[in-house]
């Protein structure tokens, strides 16, 4: 089955104040129709920049050095800005971390909610309002007619995030990208929003990308997960294997240091060292080599590429890939 979205070797640099910051250094991933992909990583891993680059929402000082973003085979990085506008909101829509910041504070929620319909000439006036109100009801907002005329500041964070989700869905996109949609919310609300996202994805058969720093959230919400470090994908794994059978030392390290409520009597084992400084020239070999407990000589010389360790499971690590091959030979 051909992927709906395919990203090949995407790289993004930021040039500012005569300094270069290498935010994304060769990301390859794909999502199929009706599937959901989680992108996890810590701050500075490039996960958020990657999805903003897919939507071409990066600020002007960002330079996409190389790579391709293919939406059903069409490279969106080569589209004119005018053609790109037809895709944004219509074929790919986005939900952001802080809904209060991503809505115009001086306009009613309703007027902003119908904007995609008007922009893409799908509906206007009463028809647009009817569809918006229906959608508000669908995402679980009580008395949607009243809510339609209210301003963003009259909503709680969780409520407003539902509005943002409705706004992303109103033009019926093929791909929904959610960038840390629950990070700013309380845990009880987070659980509700994640359930909502999963349900909407199933009902509408669209593809979804969920960006999060929380591995457990990704594992619970998505079909497949990619783990990012230093602007590269280090592992691509089916979500049911993420927490138990991940192969990359960084992914395993992340899992080990995630606090778990069920088994919290021991303090998690931290990953040694500091995160990569993307303002400095990148190391020649594996980006994680300096912090890696399994490092071998090869790691500091050659950058590992994603290799299959199992069907649907790829890792960019010499040691892990080697171990998998050995395992296969022994079998």
């Amino acid at each position, binding site marked *: 089955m051909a992927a709906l979205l395919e990203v090949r070797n995407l790289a993004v640099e930021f040039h500012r104040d005569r300094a270069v910051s290498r935010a994304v250094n060769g990301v390859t991933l794909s999502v199929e129709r009706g599937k959901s992909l989680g992108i996890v990583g810590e701050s500075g891993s490039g996960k958020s920049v990657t999805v903003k680059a897919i939507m071409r929402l990066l600020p002007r000082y960002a330079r996409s050095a190389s790579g391709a973003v293919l939406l059903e085979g069409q490279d969106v990085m080569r589209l004119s800005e005018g053609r790109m506008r037809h895709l944004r909101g219509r074929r790919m829509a986005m939900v952001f971390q802080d809904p209060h910041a991503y809505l115009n504070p001086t306009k009613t929620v309703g007027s902003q909610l119908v904007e995609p319909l008007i922009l893409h000439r799908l509906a206007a006036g009463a028809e647009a309002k009817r569809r918006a109100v229906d959608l508000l009801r669908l995402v679980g907002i009580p008395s949607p007619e009243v809510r339609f005329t209210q301003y963003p500041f009259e909503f709680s964070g969780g*409520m407003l995030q539902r509005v943002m989700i409705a706004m992303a869905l109103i033009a019926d996109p093929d791909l929904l990208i959610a960038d840390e949609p629950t990070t700013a919310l309380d845990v009880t609300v987070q659980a509700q929003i994640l359930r909502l996202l999963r349900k909407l994805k199933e009902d509408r058969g669209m593809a979804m990308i969920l960006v999060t720093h929380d591995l457990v959230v990704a594992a619970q919400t998505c079909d497949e997960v990619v783990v990012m470090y230093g602007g590269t994908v280090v592992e691509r794994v089916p979500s049911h294997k993420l927490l138990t059978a991940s192969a990359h030392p960084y992914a395993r390290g992340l899992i080990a240091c995630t606090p778990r409520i069920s088994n919290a009597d021991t303090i998690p084992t931290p990953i040694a060292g*500091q995160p990569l400084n993307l303002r400095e020239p990148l190391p020649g070999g594996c980006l994680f080599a300096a912090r890696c407990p399994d490092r071998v000589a090869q790691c500091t010389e050659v950058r590992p590429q994603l290799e299959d360790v199992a069907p649907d499971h790829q890792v960019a690590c010499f040691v892990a890939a080697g171990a998998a091959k050995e395992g296969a030979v022994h079998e």
Partner: protein
Amino acid sequence: MSETPLLEASELTRRFRSRQGVMSAVDRVSFRLMRGEHLGIVGASGSGKSTVAKLVQRLLPATEGHIYYSGRDVTNLGERALRPLRRRIQSVSQNPYASLFPNKSIGQNIVEPMLLHRMGSPKERMDSAMRLMRQVGVPSEQFYAFPHEISGGQQQRIAIARALALHPELLILDEAVSSLDVSIQAQILHLLVELQGQYSLTYLFVSHNLAVVRMICTQVAVMFLGRIVELGPVSEIFSHPAHPYTQALLAAVPDFSSARPAGADVPQEVDSEPEPPSPYRLPSGCRYRTLCPIATQRCESEEPQLRTVGAGQHAACHYSGGAEAEPDPARTEREGVR
């Protein structure tokens, strides 16, 4: 119970007045914190947990109630009388960058509290600042780096080092690891455990992250809209939470054990978010009752008080644990009405 608690809050209340009216950010909160114990305060945003931290640190005046430190009432001490006490209570806040002095280098930031309390000579102060830097894992060569030049994790280390410079007994950690990535968070948690042993510290740990509280603390207080709804030893509360709110809170935490197996469950219906009550217009009786799955008429008329429900475990619910747990006549009555 003959030992004097290091910190005791008694019926502590803080009200804020605004355009919308008066609200109690903290409402009759009482707890005791023994030396060497670590109390975690958890709750959603707006539950008043950070206000409690500010109140016990005397950064905000309490509207009502008392704060005792080593048995001494410090609620109304003047700034001057408070000064020696401040040395013994230090804090680390959520946003290390905002709490470090922006016009001073990170080394000077650590020197600053010693300077204020006239500890040692300039040379001694600088030496101990460098020692602290190394202890929290920041190279002392970075003494003259400025807060905006180092990473968030490093900033938090410096904030901790600065708090330790006065050798406090009580360290208040207000969401101190919340803004950090997990790999850095784990490093800081290790550091906290290590320092606690070395300096024999007592922690008051405010956090919305229940898993982290479980790791660091011995006691936990769960807050909902300004009230403590459950209080007790971590082991008890996390294994069998008594209050419906605590139960909901624990159930919502994404956890490894509930990770989705392959080809997973699909939620059948979309639940709408029940709006928590406005702190300006609290419901009568129990303030959690509008969200509570087991609320009855009694909850509407009578505000539950904290009462013992297990070994050292207290909950403010009419129906948790103990003798009153069996169905109440009022409840059946309500169901009858429906």
